[in-house]
């Protein structure tokens, strides 16, 4: 009886301290410094930034998608030298705190896409391209393009970033042989779209709030 109580207490204590440590592992100060660092490149409100390279919007992005991308960068499943360097030093606790904070941001889209492509883009987004076997983007990315878990938000994403990603899909994603990941779902879709179609759908989603 006494023994059982003691061991339960011990187990509880262990659980408690590990939980406590996971929380403590990221101090508010460290988190703030890391967020400021991410925002140097990703924009002061995570809205994305056009520099020499097009740096994607993270604001409002699904935490599950963000976490998987950070892991993909550090495991080299997704190839990008810059983000490999950024991601491989993040502890799991820091990753969790960052993706939660980015999910909560909600700045206006950066804009900049040709407005005359929006109508054609909306049609592709909502209806897909049946003749080319392309399903509606809305069926996975959501009717308002806000995404869900592993399906990323596209609303407000930089149109030039989307263009670069979709036209380079198979060179950048799912790059670890023998370790297929969810990027395989998008691969045939990215391949099936023509350049003008990619430009149109990218322009449409880039203006969504």
């Amino acid at each position: 009886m006494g023994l059982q109580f003691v061991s339960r207490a011990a187990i509880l204590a262990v659980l408690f301290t590990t939980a406590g440590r996971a929380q403590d592992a990221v101090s508010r100060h460290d988190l703030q410094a890391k967020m400021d660092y991410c925002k140097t490149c990703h924009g002061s409100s995570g809205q994305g930034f056009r520099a020499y390279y097009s740096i994607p919007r993270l604001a409002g992005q699904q935490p599950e998608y963000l976490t998987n991308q950070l892991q993909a960068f550090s495991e080299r499943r997704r190839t990008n030298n810059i983000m490999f360097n950024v991601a491989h030093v993040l502890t799991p606790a820091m990753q969790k705190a960052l993706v939660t904070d980015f999910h909560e941001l909600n700045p206006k889209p950066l804009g900049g896409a040709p407005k005359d492509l929006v109508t054609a883009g909306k049609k592709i987004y909502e209806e897909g391209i049946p003749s080319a076997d392309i399903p509606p983007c809305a069926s996975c990315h959501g009717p308002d393009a806000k995404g869900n878990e592993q399906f990323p938000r596209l609303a407000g994403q930089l149109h030039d970033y989307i263009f670069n990603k979709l036209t380079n899909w198979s060179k950048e994603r799912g790059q670890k042989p023998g370790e297929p990941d969810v990027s395989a779902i998008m691969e045939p879709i990215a391949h099936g779209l023509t350049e003008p179609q990619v430009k149109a759908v990218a322009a449409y989603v880039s203006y969504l709030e």
Partner: protein
Amino acid sequence: MKLTRSRRAILVIGFAAVFPWAGHAESLAIRNCTWCHGVSAHGYSPAPGLAGQRREYIQNQLKNFSEHTRDNPFSRLYMWGATANLSPATAHGLAFYFSTLSPQAANDGNRELEAEGRSIYQLGMPDSNTAACVVCHGPNAEGVGEIPRLGGLAYTYLKRRLEQWGEGYHAAARPPMPRIASKLSANQIEALASYLSFVK
């Protein structure tokens, strides 16, 4: 004789296209700048090279000088005066003109620090939250739009610029440089300035 004259006419027309206010004030306007910024605008201490600098960036800086938001000692001493009477059209024409000249690397950094500078430039320092410069300034430090070319600028100029943000000068500059530069150590600044001075 006739030919020379028509050649000259073509030159004048070419110039007039770049400098819509025309007349022969144009060569004077350029000479007013290259007097300090060096032959072919390749830089002459302490004035940095302007050749091949990005047009939008030059225009922004000319505005910063004339509005006195770029407020470090050399800017006050030299550039506040040089921009006091520049019309927006002249500033635009000069920015365009200098952006079309070919740059020349100053090559005056410390070769021993080049490798360290290259590493910070290309990879950043993720442990201390320093962003990789390459993302914004480009793989050859050539810049784009409002983000300046850094490749080939003089060591002393780059060093001074990076130090002065940390000292609080030009704090109203477009983000993010004040924050990035104020976190660099003296050694890191010397390494970056050395590396960049050699980039062609």
